[in-house]
């Protein structure tokens, strides 16, 4: 039987992908350019018995998904720039209390209200450093409508597997462009369930590390009575200021993600085998980069592309390895050098890193990238 296909916008694909992943609770607040996710969820979730709620503000939406997740739901919120800034408070809560949730943020121009209808890639650092304190970060940056659908599913899986908030950030171009999408059959893409407790309620501790760095999470209303707080906590969930416990718990929360980069980090290698100049790109910019690499090859330049699909954790290992082999990196991005700084860190001074930065609300075009490729000597 032929698979179901559709002509969808990135935002619509995100909502449908979430539903495939088992999302049954959405809370949001209207904001351009992500509102279509809320609109589709308000239409589709109740058909499946799921819940949609439009909250009074962005922080409230973040709070509602965390509360619903603790009550056993698979939860999503969607926002953009200023909304992400507001949500940061409770993204940190999700990190320290270790509550699975997915935050879909469409990158528009900033800071502040910026350019609500223009594309940008300037929230990638906010995904890692936006909420205060040390915490894990997982950020996926899809480059197409199909990939947005698939990466939302992966985001749900990672958030359940590692019991932490996961962000998906398309730029506004990916979020609003329409492409053909082929829907997977039920069961075709793995959906990871939450690790439920195996001990009876009286023995349950919500942060019991005898089960590893990712302890099982019970749901409210299933017989398990437990305490959740945003304070530094002990294994039983109650607050503590004991130095050795706080240190160990903080380290575990970051380690549970950073020790599993090989499971989390994904990327695409395009014509890298013999490449001398490697364009490192993500999101819609990678589409211009692919075109530019092909154009450069036609002109006899051995160019290739390393496409970042998982921005956090950053693909350090892969880029460090490339730095030992190539003549230089070109890093086009719709911000003033956020990814470029990370690539420079990984290049360790071995090869030049030539950035192309646009923050004018226009996409980076292939000619710009080809010209920069030619600058690598």
């Amino acid at each position, binding site marked *: 039987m032929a698979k179901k296909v559709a002509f969808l916008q990135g935002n619509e694909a995100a909502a449908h992908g979430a539903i495939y992943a088992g999302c049954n609770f959405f809370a949001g607040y209207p904001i351009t350019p992500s509102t279509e996710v809320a609109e589709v969820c308000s239409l589709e979730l109740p058909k499946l018995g799921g819940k949609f709620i439009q909250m009074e503000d962005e922080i409230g939406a973040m709070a509602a998904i965390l509360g619903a997740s603790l009550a056993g*739901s698979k939860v999503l919120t969607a926002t953009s720039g200023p909304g992400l800034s507001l949500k940061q408070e409770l993204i940190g809560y999700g990190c320290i209390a270790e509550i699975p949730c997915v935050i879909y943020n469409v990158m528009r121009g900033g800071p502040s209200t910026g350019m609500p209808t223009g594309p940008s890639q300037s929230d990638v650092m906010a995904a890692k450093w936006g909420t205060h304190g040390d915490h894990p970060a997982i950020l996926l940056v899809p480059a197409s409508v199909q990939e947005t659908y698939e990466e939302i599913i992966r985001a749900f899986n990672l958030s359940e597997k590692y019991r932490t908030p996961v962000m998906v950030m398309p730029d506004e171009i990916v979020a609003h462009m329409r492409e053909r999408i082929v829907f997977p059959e039920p069961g075709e893409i793995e959906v990871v369930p939450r690790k439920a407790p195996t001990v009876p309620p009286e023995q349950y501790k919500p942060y019991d590390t005898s089960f590893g760095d990712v302890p099982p999470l019970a749901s409210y209303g299933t017989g398990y009575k437990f305490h959740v707080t945003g304070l530094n906590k002990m294994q039983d969930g109650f607050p503590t200021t004991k130095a050795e416990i706080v240190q160990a718990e903080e380290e575990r929360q970051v380690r549970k993600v950073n020790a599993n980069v090989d499971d989390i980090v994904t990327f695409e290698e395009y014509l890298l085998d013999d490449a001398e100049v490697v364009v490192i790109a993500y999101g819609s910019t990678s589409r211009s980069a692919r075109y530019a690499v092909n154009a450069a090859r036609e002109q006899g330049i051995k160019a290739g592309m390393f496409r970042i699909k998982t921005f956090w954790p950053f693909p350090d290992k892969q880029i460090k390895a490339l730095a030992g082999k190539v003549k230089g990196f070109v890093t086009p991005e719709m911000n003033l050098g956020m990814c470029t700084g990370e690539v420079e860190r990984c290049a360790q001074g071995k090869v030049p890193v030539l950035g192309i930065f646009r923050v004018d609300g226009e996409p980076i075009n292939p000619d710009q990238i080809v010209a920069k490729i030619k600058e690598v000597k």
Partner: protein
Amino acid sequence: MAFDYDKYIRPGKLPHIWCPGCGHGIVMKGLIRAIDSLQLDTKNTAIVSGIGCASRLPGYMDCCTLHTAHGRAAAFATGVKMAKPEMNVILVGGDGDGTAIGGNHFIHACRRNIDMTYIILNNKIYGMTGGQFSPATPTGAKASTTPYGNPDPPFDIAKLAIGAGATFVARGTAYHATQIDKLIAEAIQHKGFSVVEILDDCPTTYGRRNKFKSVIEMMNHLKETSVPVKAAEKMTAEQLQGKVLTGVLYKEEKPEYTTEYAKVIERAQAK
């Protein structure tokens, strides 16, 4: 036989953090008696709070407890209740947490009329941070950030709740300890968003700055300045000057949010 509070308290979690003379423990005992009188299943009861002295209350209770971020209790609780409408959801917090930083979530929870009970322990001050004025601090009062007297007018929290759409609003005081459980129990039984404001004392950060010589004096002040709604009906405006009304101040039957959302699901599935 004395009432057994211990069966609702988590083993090993006492003593509490509250100062000697603080009324929060009186309110917690009232909440426990209310839960007991209604025979609520503690496995199916969530107690949600924000940040502040009052917000530490859930940690002592042997229920599903959620100590959220400053001001956010109502929004977290809305998520819990929407996800599991069959759960009893009780919110606890202070005046600053609930009506300043959490004011927006508070009024919208009232507006939705979602079936939860919000117990606001109003001691008119930010106690945990050392006594800064809150939206409930009386004009002229001294706080650590109003050294020349408070220029701000206070909220009437109960009126705010009624104006925002809460369908059950009651007020009690920490002095009238034996009424607290009855007000809370009636609030929990009410189908819709219910608010119980308990006027409370903070001897440590409010009393000593505002010429209360003792906790007893603060408790007597709560007694002398409050009038039951029934008694107030027979009093003149002059007699009621400077008094606050206690008891059930407002009650109304209106469609409840999770029930209405269940109808949304029915309509979506009928198509």
